[in-house]
């Protein structure tokens, strides 16, 4: 069944996979709570990528593939960080799904 994320006075509905149902309810506290559910504590490096992805989505309307996200990171923060290993170290296992979930973006539909 659907679960709910409780943050102070806010109640946010999550879908079965833990994604926000109403993306408009997202804020930093929500991101931290969502990350917590994934066993992650958000540091400045996580935030850097979350803001990058949110800005990219807002500007382009696109959810990038992992490969494109890595290139976007490289373009923005340099080749050192623009590696899938870096993304993987911050958002382990399924990095794209995980970062989308925490950043309050739609679940990426795997087109391949």
């Amino acid at each position: 069944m659907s679960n709910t994320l409780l943050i102070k006075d806010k109640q946010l509905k999550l879908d079965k996979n833990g994604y926000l149902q109403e993306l408009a309810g997202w804020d930093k506290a929500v991101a931290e709570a969502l990350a917590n559910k994934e066993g992650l504590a958000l540091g400045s490096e996580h935030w850097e990528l979350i803001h990058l992805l949110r800005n990219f989505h807002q500007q382009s309307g696109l959810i990038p593939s992992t490969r494109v996200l890595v290139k976007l990171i490289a373009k923005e923060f340099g080749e050192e960080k623009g590696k899938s290993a870096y993304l993987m170290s911050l958002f382990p296992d399924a990095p794209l799904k995980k970062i989308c979930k925490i950043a309050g973006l739609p679940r990426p539909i795997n087109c391949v």
Partner: protein
Amino acid sequence: MTLKNILIIIRQAPYSSLLPAAALDVLLTAAAFEQPITLLFMGEGVQHLLSAQNSTGSGMKNISKALPSLELYEVDQVFMEKDALANRKLENEKLVLQVESLSLNQIADAIEKADQVFNF
């Protein structure tokens, strides 16, 4: 992997049809498969390049927002039909992306060179 030259032609105006958004999805997927891609705006399709669009609240996708990001997808062959803007008195409008123009003759060549054309 076999590479196929894929030419995607967008000829429908924005918002009148779902086909341009479908064409963009085909393009992004073909890019994920690392196929050589060319994108061409023809006829009414050049209207997608106008930057003054705002579809907020309409429920329609504004695909022009995605065009400046195509470079990240390694799609750098983006063209428009020569005269298509001028014929619509749009040559002084601001565009979301600077693209090269192709004459009809060059468009015919691009079609001949492609292995597959998606003309939406």
